[in-house]
Each structure stands twice: as structure tokens, then as C-alpha cells.
């Protein structure tokens, strides 16, 4: 079993999702569940903290593509923080930095929801 863990925290009205380990086609449904839970709770402001994520495949990237519009329609967003260089390079290869906001630090991403 690939090692992956997803959990969430709250900072004011911003929801922080921590992803850890390996995000691939096998583990991506766990991240989808986390987004579904937030949508059920009508929480649309999300920062994903990648500080402990070691690997992402297109199945993981696809989760953000599938959910970001729902968040933006409700005046929220999915913003990304604390990515390791290797993981960021995959987002970059696909052109994500044009469509999403990336921050070095989680607190800077939270502030942007201000």
C-alpha cells in the first residue's frame, strides 16, 4: 500500500488540507473525499499544504482540476503552499502556475483570502 495521508485543519474561515506521502491514482480518492467533505460543509476557501508530500501523479493533479471551479464559484479557491521542488516541477510542467496560486509559506496563502 502506498503511503498517503490527508487531514484538515481550520484557521479562521480558511480550511487547510495537509497531504503527506505519495499521491497517485490509488490514493487520489482519499483527497477527493476530503474535498467532498468540505463542500458538504459549505467550506470553499482551501489551502493545501504540501510540505510532507513526496510524490504526485496526474491523478492527484486531476483532483485539484476537478474541484477548483466549485470553490471559485462560491468565492473561494484552492491555493497551494510549501511544495518541495520535485513536486512543484510537475505542476509547472503542466502549466498549473498560470491557473493556481502557489506560496512558499502557508500563512501567506491564508492571508490572500483576507
Amino acid at each position, binding site marked *: *500500500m*502506498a*503511503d498517503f495521508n490527508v487531514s484538515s485543519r481550520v484557521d479562521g474561515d480558511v480550511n487547510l488540507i495537509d497531504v503527506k506521502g*505519495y499521491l*497517485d*491514482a*490509488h490514493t487520489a480518492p482519499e483527497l477527493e473525499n476530503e474535498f467532498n467533505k468540505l463542500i458538504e460543509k459549505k467550506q470553499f476557501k482551501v489551502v493545501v499544504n504540501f510540505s510532507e508530500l513526496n*510524490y504526485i*501523479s*496526474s*491523478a492527484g*493533479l*486531476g*483532483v*485539484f*482540476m*476537478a*474541484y*477548483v*471551479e*466549485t470553490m471559485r464559484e462560491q468565492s473561494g479557491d484552492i491555493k497551494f503552499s510549501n511544495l518541495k521542488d*520535485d513536486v512543484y516541477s*510537475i505542476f509547472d*510542467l*503542466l*502549466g*498549473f502556475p498560470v*491557473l493556481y496560486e502557489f506560496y512558499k509559506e502557508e500563512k501567506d496563502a491564508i492571508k490572500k483570502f483576507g
Partner: protein
Amino acid sequence: MKPKLNILKNELTFKSSTDHLHEVRNFVEINGNKVGLSDKTIAHISLAVDEACTNIIKHAYNNLLDKKIKVKIETSNSQFIVIITDNGKHFDPNKIPEPNIEKNQKMKKGGGLGMFLMKKLMDEVHYNSKVNGNELILIKNYN
């Protein structure tokens, strides 16, 4: 109980479940280290192979879990070649159009990125239709 994997020196056969993707990546890593590839190159090849196997599971086997995928690695002093074969329905990943991420996300769709990533990460990607399935050849040049 976990299905037993068949690992030969440079060949790995596994059942068509995403549960095995991490083992496939480890297999690529072991072989990449053997020929002294950099960590970055190994990471790129592992991701490309993950994407290829994910596509096979989803499209060639329609998510059936008990089918076989074989990954074989051949190396020379200038190329790292990964040959991936399956017995699923014919599926030519080259026919997948280049993804439009902006359009996909407006439509709340997440797929279609795998082949594009594979081509970006590898130097060559070849597809051969076989009598009983598909063969995909991924090549990375080095040195």
C-alpha cells in the same frame, strides 16, 4: 491478502490494480540506481511509468483488477528503455488529445493529463498494437 508479485531481475508482472503502482515505481527506481541514473531522472521515469500503468488499468482494462501488466526494463550505455505490455483492449495513448487544463477545470474534469506528462518526461514514447493487447515503449536517453 496481497497478491504475490512476480519480480525477475528486470521484469515485473503485476495485477491491474492501482494498489501496485508504488511497487512499479520502486522497481523503476531499483533499476535506475543500478545504471547510475540521477535521482531526478529516476523520478521522471517512475512517474511516466506510473502514468502508463494507470492508463492501462483505466482504459485498456476498464478498471478490472485481475488482469496482467508486464513492465520490462532494458538498458544500454545510453538509453533506459521501459517496455509495458498488457492484454487489454486496444488503447493508443498517442490518440489522446493534448489537455486544455483551463477548459477541463471549467468543466470540473480532472483527467487526460497522463499521456501529456509521459511525453514531457520521456525522450520517446512509442505505441504498438498487438494481437492480444498493447505494447508501450518509453525511452530515456542519458550520458
